């Protein structure tokens, strides 16, 4: 069964490859806008580029999770989720993982290229990559949660980010602090462990939370 479900998720993403490429293109476009706006100041850039990468990652996850359940809602698939006699938590969990695999992982895979473009040192870019690897699944699941929360409302394009961004703050604080520490030559493993703890806290409870939220937002 689980094999079947994974196959279905993969089929869905492979049929809509623009869902995979568009976030990637968006990521590179936003990243490349910053030098145009800020001018060729190398010193300034070395300081802000980790932050720029993180902000861009946030925008991308917001964009790709914003309308996560919209089609399912319009097609009535959500109603089937709610009246299903088998637990849908597994399906929801796989959907979160699939969404991360196809929208965030490509960005992380292209990070070496970004490091090269902006001349980030190896150690810095390694930490950025690790924080992204642990942070983006959290961001994606919170974003999906936000999209489930606003499902019943019409015209909610801006509302979801407004609800979701405050919940991004803990992840941001610890990733930024890890990146800061490494550029100052301090140990950074504490921040990474906290990020990991957040990840392992949020991923298992998210499917249950999502199911409950879907029930609420259909019910209103």
């Amino acid at each position, binding site marked *: *069964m689980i094999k*079947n*479900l994974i196959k*279905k998720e993969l*089929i*869905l993403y492979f*049929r*809509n490859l623009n869902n995979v490429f568009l976030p990637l293109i968006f990521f590179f476009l936003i990243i490349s806008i910053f030098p145009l706006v800020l001018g060729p100041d190398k010193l300034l850039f070395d300081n802000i580029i980790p932050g720029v990468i993180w902000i861009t990652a946030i925008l991308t996850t917001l964009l790709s999770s914003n309308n996560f359940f919209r*089609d*399912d809602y*319009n*097609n*009535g*698939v959500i*109603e*089937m*989720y*709610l*009246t*299903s*006699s*088998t637990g*849908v938590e597994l*399906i929801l969990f796989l959907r979160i993982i699939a969404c991360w695999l196809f929208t965030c992982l490509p960005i992380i895979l292209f990070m070496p290229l970004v490091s090269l473009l902006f001349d980030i040192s190896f150690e810095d870019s390694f930490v950025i990559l690790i924080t992204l690897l642990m942070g983006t699944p959290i961001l994606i699941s919170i974003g999906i949660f936000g999209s489930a929360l606003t499902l019943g409302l019409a015209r909610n394009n801006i509302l979801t980010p407004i609800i979701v961004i405050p919940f991004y703050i803990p992840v941001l604080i610890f990733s930024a602090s890890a990146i800061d520490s490494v550029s100052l030559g301090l140990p950074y493993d504490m921040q990474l462990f906290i990020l990991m703890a957040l990840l392992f806290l949020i991923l298992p409870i998210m499917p249950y939370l999502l199911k409950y939220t879907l029930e609420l937002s*259909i*019910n209103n």
Partner: protein
Amino acid sequence: MEILVNSATCYKNNNIIFKNANIILDNSEICIVMGPNGCGKTTFIKCLCKIENLDSGHILIDNINIQDRKSNYLDNIIYIGHKNSLNDDLTVTENLEYLGAFDQTVNKNSVNKIKDAMEYFDIYKYKDFMVSELSEGNKKKTSLARLILSQKKIWLLDEPLSFLDEIAVKNLINLFSKHQKIGGIIVASSHYDFSDDVDNFKFFKMEN
């Protein structure tokens, strides 16, 4: 299996959708919910499977309130709304295969059964079509094919006859009487008069 709806009332934004609905359904009974547009047929059926909640009154299935935590009403219910619950980016076959994930009574790896279900509603020729490419009638048929695959006792159908052609309507009514013979319960909203085709038949009239 028994469904009992007792003085059910539902509001939406302070408007009464329906109030004091009472109905008792036993094995092998078919209930047709009728009424003008906007009288709350859809909401009523959604309340029966708890997609929407009642504001007062209660719904008992086998004497257990469906709001109750220990109620396993979902094990017996199949709901097909007027949204077809189909994934647009999957083919007809894939959609029916995917059903096993939501319904434990569907036989897994039942390629033949899926084929039979598609042939029953005459959609086998569209088996590799994306659902988004189908006409509304064929989408409806695809979602109704779930009824053949599933072995659940209670069917809750919201306007099952809409978009269907005459042959498909006949097929569906045959399916209804087959389900009735094995003791199933059907609640469907419709404008079609079933009284000639099925017995043990209840009307449930709703008013604005």
